[in-house]
Structures are given as structure tokens and as C-alpha cells.
């Protein structure tokens, strides 16, 4: 056959990046934390995660094909990431049908309503989690299938809030390794950090958001300590970073592309906002953990941040 000559405007080559590769990297980065969770909390972790992932992918496929009547986009793997992150935000013992409802809210309301990947103003997995937290508060805070030798059936942040735990009773090394009560994905701090380093290395995320979030939280705790002697657990920077969903939120949820700012300057402002709001909720709010709400609120501020934090125009001061 004679050659066909193809003409198109430049550039004629493309880098290795693709949406699928990025999402695949996030899945890979989340696997160590999932394994730690399954090891510490038992096999049900894998069951809940599987339900969440399958439900998210299925809902995206069904909504795209039959409601929006367009090409399915599940090949970009973003629904898998949403499924994983949603599961990571749930307690192990949660009934499977609640997981399915969470997936429907995450994908259906959180993502597809706005037009699918890239158009959603709020992190879909968080939308699902926050809905479940409000709709099923009992099941969402039931940690009874948690670590066998844990102090109580509640998370350490809740314990601290209730004044039940003191500094001497907290084992930071155990916290790093995942031996604490909490949502499935938030407990393996070391594994979460490892995955975060992988994402940094692959340039999927930049350091700006995680460092701004965690740095702000640590500084906030330090200021509390200066005001009050620093003896209490909720005044320890390291405690705040390792407890609850700080790492999961800062590294994996707050860095969601669609819902976070574009420029590095914007990312820093956004990260500081999340850190501040999280600490305000943790220290003075009604909920023991504030990461979800903080990210959710800052998601809403992202378009505004993008408007004002523009890149510096070349050749201007």
C-alpha cells in the first residue's frame, strides 16, 4: 500500500504521561498501606476495599453508558482510585451495602453529576465519606473490629478528645507501623509515607500540598504547646501528623488534581488552609477528626485560589 502522509500542527511527539499512568501510580502507591491495613485489621479490609472499587467502577460505567450515553471512561483508572480512597476512609466492620451507597454518592453525585473526571469541584471519595458520616454516624464510627489490644473501641483522636489517653500511653512506633484504631487506610503511617515518596519520585504529586498541610498542623500544635506548657498529647506535632487521617489526607486526598490549585503558590495557600481547618476542628470542634471537612472546604476555595495565584508572566517583575 502506498504511504499515507499525515499532517498535523506541532508538537509531533508526546511525553510518557497519561491519565491512566498517573492513576495507576496512585493505585500502586496505595497498595502498601492497604496491605498493612489487611495485616493489622484482618481480611475484611480486602473485602470492603474490593466492594468499594468494584462499585465505583461499575457506577461510573453504568452512568456514563446509560445515563450520559457516552463513551465509558473507566479505562483511565480514576474510578479505581476513588474506590480505594473511599474504602481507606471507612471502618473495617462497615456493612457492605453502606459501602455501595458510599460509592454511588462518590461517583454519582461527587463526580459524574459535574461531567466526570476533571470537572468535579469536590473530591469524590470525600463526598462519599462525608455523606456516609452524616447518614450512618453509628456504623461509620464503630471501630470494634479494630486492633485486638487497643485501649478502647474508639480512635486515638476520639480518646484524646475525651481526655482518655495521656502521652505515656501512646506508642509512636506502633502508630507508624499501623497499630492504632482508625479507618482502613489511615493507620499505616509508614506505608502511606512510602507511597507518597513514590508519587513524588514519579512526579505525580509535588511536595507543596503535603508539606504545607502537615507543616501547618505541626506548627499549630507547637503554638498550642507554647501557650500551655506542651505537656498534653494534643499539643504534640508528631501526634497530630501520625494520628487520624492526616497523612492519608495530605498526601492522597488533598492532592487530587481536579480539586486542588494549579500553581505551586496556590498549592501552598490551599495546604495551609487545610492544615489550619483540620487543627481547628480537632482541637475545638465537635468531631475528633477534621481532615475530611478541611479538604472539602478548601476544595470549594480552589477556583478562587486559581484565579488569584497565577504563574508569574515571563519578563515581568
Amino acid at each position: 500500500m502506498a504511504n499515507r502522509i499525515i499532517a498535523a500542527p506541532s508538537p509531533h511527539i508526546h511525553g510518557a504521561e497519561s491519565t491512566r499512568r498517573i492513576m495507576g501510580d496512585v493505585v500502586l502507591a496505595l497498595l502498601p498501606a492497604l496491605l498493612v491495613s489487611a495485616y493489622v485489621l484482618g481480611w475484611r479490609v480486602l473485602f470492603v476495599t474490593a466492594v468499594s472499587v468494584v462499585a465505583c467502577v461499575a457506577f461510573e460505567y453504568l452512568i456514563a453508558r446509560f445515563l450520559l450515553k457516552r463513551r465509558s471512561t473507566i479505562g483511565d483508572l480514576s474510578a479505581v482510585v476513588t474506590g480505594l480512597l473511599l474504602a481507606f476512609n471507612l471502618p473495617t466492620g462497615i456493612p457492605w451495602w453502606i459501602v455501595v451507597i458510599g460509592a454511588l454518592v462518590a461517583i454519582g453525585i461527587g463526580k459524574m453529576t459535574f461531567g466526570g473526571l476533571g470537572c468535579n469541584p469536590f473530591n469524590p471519595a470525600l463526598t462519599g465519606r462525608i455523606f456516609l458520616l452524616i447518614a450512618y454516624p453509628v456504623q461509620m464510627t464503630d471501630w470494634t473490629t479494630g486492633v485486638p489490644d487497643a485501649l478502647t473501641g474508639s480512635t486515638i483522636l476520639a480518646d484524646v478528645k475525651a481526655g482518655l489517653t495521656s502521652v505515656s500511653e501512646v506508642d509512636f512506633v506502633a502508630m507508624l507501623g499501623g497499630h492504632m484504631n482508625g479507618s482502613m487506610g489511615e493507620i499505616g503511617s509508614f506505608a502511606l509515607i512510602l507511597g507518597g515518596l513514590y508519587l513524588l519520585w514519579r512526579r505525580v504529586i509535588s511536595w507543596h500540598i503535603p508539606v504545607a498541610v502537615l507543616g501547618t498542623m505541626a506548627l499549630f500544635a507547637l503554638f498550642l504547646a507554647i501557650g500551655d506548657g506542651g505537656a498534653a498529647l494534643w499539643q504534640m506535632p508528631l501526634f497530630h501528623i501520625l494520628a487520624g487521617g492526616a497523612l492519608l489526607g495530605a498526601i492522597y486526598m488533598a492532592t487530587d488534581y481536579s480539586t486542588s490549585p494549579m500553581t505551586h503558590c496556590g498549592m501552598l495557600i490551599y495546604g495551609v488552609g487545610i492544615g489550619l481547618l483540620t487543627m481547628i476542628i480537632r482541637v475545638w470542634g465537635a468531631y475528633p477528626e477534621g481532615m475530611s471537612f478541611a479538604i472539602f472546604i478548601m476544595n470549594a476555595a480552589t477556583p478562587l485560589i486559581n484565579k488569584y495565584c497565577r504563574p508569574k508572566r515571563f519578563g515581568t517583575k
Partner: protein
Amino acid sequence: MKTFPIGGIHPSDNKQWSKDKAIEVLELPDSVAVPMIQHIGAPATPIVKKGDKVLTGQLIGEATGFVSANIHSPISGTVTAVDMLPNGQGQRRMMVVIKREGDEWVETIDRSTELKRACTLEPKEIIAKVKEAGIVGMGGAQFPTHVKLSIPEGQKANILIINGVECEPYLTSDYRTMLERGEMMLVGVSLLMRAISVDRAVIGVENNKPDAIAHLRKLVADGAYRGIEVMPLKTRYPQGGEKQLIAAVTGRQVPPPPALPISVGAVVCNASTAVAVYEAVQKNKPLIERVVTITGKHLKETHNYLTRFGTPYSTLIERAGGLPEGDVKILNGGPMMGRALVNLSAPIMKGCSGVTVYSDGDALRGVEQACIKCGKCVNACPIGLEPYLLARASKLQKWDVAEEHNATDCIECGCCSYTCPSYLPLLDYIRIAKQTVMANIRARANKK
């Protein structure tokens, strides 16, 4: 090691295919079609007619006004047509067609290979010779060099920058030129320094060409070339962009358009252009040939040919063993900024540093997906724009938004499209926005 301040990408340089191929002289074409526009500005006016006999190096097209360039005959023979003929993109342009008879040169041209360093000409005389020889920027932009060298009243140059970056993947013509014609280039650089009255010149070369850096440094160290420095730069595309190169070398940023490099005291010339300046000033030789790389992963052979202008692209492709199997994309230039050719019998021109051939899958674009707002385009833009936003404004035809977000600053380097994980043709949209906004600005100016 120095580089430009923001944005940029790291495409594989793919220079291995042709970088070790020494410059060869391509056989003379049997006939040439010489376009009267091979530069930015007004087309030259043909001064020969059908039936005229011409010599190699004879003026056949006269510059029309200041921003224009002379065109000379690349071969000797008889003019067979002066007509509108299709160029590489299929657009009709005024061309002079010459059938070759032997290779007889204009007498005043010194064809000896002996290096001639000494020059006592005044700056004005050098610029006049550059203008006479029809020299234009040979890095691709084809801006008339004499215009660049004629520094406007009230402004002053303090540095000459020679662009030996060749950041465009695949191309190796400047690289081979620096290696094999280094002395000619250095004399050319000295002449350019004299023309714009500066005592400092920096030759910027990316550090993926260590042998070119070493070779030029050795030549400079010999002491015959005062004030010339060879500066290695950290390899990063688009370092060869004029603004990027000035920022890399001097740290100074040229303000947004319409400001020119001279506003920060810099004049930039391409490495091959410096050789052309040497030949024009010292040897009276007009710009009628250049080194052209023919390269591609799927070609049987690759070469760096000294090619007379007007030679059809197809000659180079034949010499490379013909087109590979399957669908092909043939580029005038490299893959980042080169233009796709549809007419292979069209002539090679002054700005053609290479012909790159892609085949099969490499020739096709990826499937467009939704923008995921990852911000990679924003971080890749070397000029500080928001490509995702400009592309969207362009798609929605919101030209005021595109103007407000500085669409006219775009240098069309292609970093945004290259880096987009959703395979969005960002630059396609931005080009449309840029052209529309520029037209709008002109229309407003005309109204006043």
C-alpha cells in the same frame, strides 16, 4: 550549570541517529524552485525572467523594503519559469525555477577553503554585506539578520549570544556545523561582535553535546578570538528559544511582546547563521546552501548534507533510502516545532535545519481525553502562561479572556501539548487564540 528560569520539558533528544554523520556535500539538483519568500517580512521581488541565464550566487530576488531579504540563485543555468508554485505545506508562493547547467559561480565569490580571519570593515559595511548576502536566522525563524544587527537609535547591545543549543530533538545540523566548521563560525562571531560593537559574546551549547563544547573551547583558547566564551547549558527544551537562551546566559528576562531582545541589551544569532555571516563578509558568498539533517528512527540511512536551497525534500528522502513502510509524517525541522510537509517536491529553504521522518504509530496523535486540571501544562510553560485556561478560552471563543491571560506571549514551543496527560491539543487551540487576539489588537489600533 545555567538554564532558563521557569517551565520546560525533557524530551529524549534522539540525536544518536545522525550525530556521528559528518557533513557531506549533496549532489547538485537538476533543477531548483527558489521561493521569493524564505524569511519573515515582505517577499523579495524577482529580477529575472523566463529564459535568463543565471550563475550560482547571482541575485535573482531583490529585498522589498527593510524587513525582507535578498534571494540568490543556488545553481547556474536557465530560468524556466517565474510562477506561483506550492511550498512544503501546499501553499502557493512566488518561485523562480532554474534548470541547471554545470555549476558556474559569480566571479566575485571566493571559493577557496582557506580560513580568512582578518577584517577591517566598519560595522556598517559588515551589516551591508550581511544584507546583500540575504542572510536570515537559520535556526528556523528566518528573521532577516541585517534587521537584527541594525540596532535602533537610543538602544545599545552589550552582549552577543550565539545559539548553539539545538534543543529540538533529532536535529544535528548546528552540532555538526560547530564541530566541523567551528573556526568559520568563530570568525563569524567576531564579525557579528564588530557589527553590533560589543566586546563579549557567549556561545550557548547544551551539555548533551560535550564534544562540541570541548572543540569550541579549544579553538577559543588559542587566543585568536577575543571576548568569546563557550557556555555549557543544562539540557532542557526549549532552551534554544530566544528569550529562554537570553535568560539562561544572562539571567535577564526580555519583557513581554512587543519588546525585543535588544531591550535587555542582547542580540541572538544561530550558530549556522554565524557561519553564513563569515562566508558573506570574508568570501563574498551569498546564502545559497546550508547543512540539513535528514533523520528518523525508521529511515535506512541518516545524513547531514550541505544542501543547496531549492533542492526538493524528496531528494533528501531518496538519499536516506526512501520513506519507511506505513503511514508517515515528514517534518520540516524537528518534532517539537517542525511543520509537517504534504508536498515533498517542494524546495528546501533557508530555515530548514533538518527533515525528520516519523512512521506508523509515531506519526499519530493520542486520543483526546478530559482535562484533569493537573496543572502540568502550567508548570511546563516556559513563558508563565496557563495553557489549559487559554485552550479553553479559545475553544469557547472567549477572545477577551485569552487576551487578558496573555495569549500573545506564547512562543509556540509545544511544551504544554507534550506534557498533557490527557493528550489535549493545547497548542492548537492557543495558536488560534494568539492569532485572533493579535488581529483584534491590530483592529483596535487601526480604529484609533
